[in-house]
C-alpha cells in the first residue's frame, strides 16, 4: 500500500515537471521519506537522482516539441553551483525563518506577476 502511494505521488511529481517545468522534488522527497522509509537527507539526495532522470526525459520530450533552448539551459545549469555555494553561506549567516518568509513573499509576488500577465494576453 505504501509502495502504491509512493508510486502515485511520483506520477504526480512527474506530471508537475511536464506541465510547469520543475523537477518534482517537492513531491519526490515526501514519497521517499514518508512511504518508503528513507531519512530526510537520504530522501533529498535520492530525489536528486529522480529529478535528473525525470528532467532528462522531460527535456528530451520538450526538445521534440521544439520547446528547448539547449544553449540557454546549459549556461543556467553550469552557473548554478556558484549560486548554491552563495546560498549555503547566506543560510548560515541569516536567521532561517527570515529567509523563509522573504522567499515566500518573493514567490507570491512572482505568482501575482504571472497571473496578471496571463490574464492580460490572448491565448
Amino acid at each position: 500500500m505504501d509502495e502504491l502511494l509512493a508510486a502515485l505521488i511520483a506520477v504526480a511529481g512527474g506530471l508537475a515537471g511536464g506541465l510547469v517545468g520543475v523537477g518534482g522534488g517537492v513531491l519526490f522527497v515526501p514519497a521517499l521519506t514518508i512511504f518508503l522509509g528513507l531519512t530526510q537527507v537520504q530522501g533529498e539526495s535520492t530525489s536528486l537522482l529522480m529529478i535528473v532522470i525525470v528532467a532528462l526525459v522531460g527535456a528530451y520530450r520538450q526538445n521534440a516539441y521544439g520547446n528547448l533552448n539547449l544553449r540557454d539551459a546549459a549556461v543556467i545549469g553550469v552557473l548554478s553551483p556558484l549560486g548554491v555555494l552563495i546560498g549555503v553561506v547566506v543560510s548560515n549567516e541569516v536567521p532561517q525563518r527570515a529567509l523563509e518568509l522573504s522567499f515566500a513573499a518573493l514567490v507570491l509576488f512572482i505568482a501575482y506577476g504571472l497571473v496578471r500577465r496571463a490574464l492580460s494576453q490572448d491565448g
Partner: protein
Amino acid sequence: MPSAHTLKLAAIGTLAGVFSGLFGVGGGTVIVPLLIFWFGYGERLATGTSLGAIVLIGLLGAVAQGGIYGNVHVGTGLLLSIPAVLGVVIGTAIQQRIPQRAVSLLFAALLVAVAAELIVR
C-alpha cells in the same frame, strides 16, 4: 565581454542555485518565471529550457551527495523513477494541448503552494 543575454542567463543560474542552496527547492521555481519575464520566453519554451537546466543542476547535486556523502539510494530512486517518468511524459504531452497562459496559471498555483509550505514550516 559576455553579452547582456549571457549575463542575464548567468544571473538566472546563480539565483536558481542560491534558492536551492537556501531552501532545497528545485531551481525550476526561479528559472521558469525569470525566462518568461526577462527574455519574453513563451511558457512552453521556458518550462522545456528549465528542465534542460535542471538536468545539470540535479546531476551536480546527485554526484556530490552520492559520490561524496553516499546518501543516494540508487535502487529505490531508479524504481520510483519509473512512475515519475510516466508522469513527465504525460505532463509534457498535456502541456502541448493547453493554452500557454494556462501553464502560467498552474505555475502561479504551484508558487502559492510553495509559499504556504514555507510559511507554515
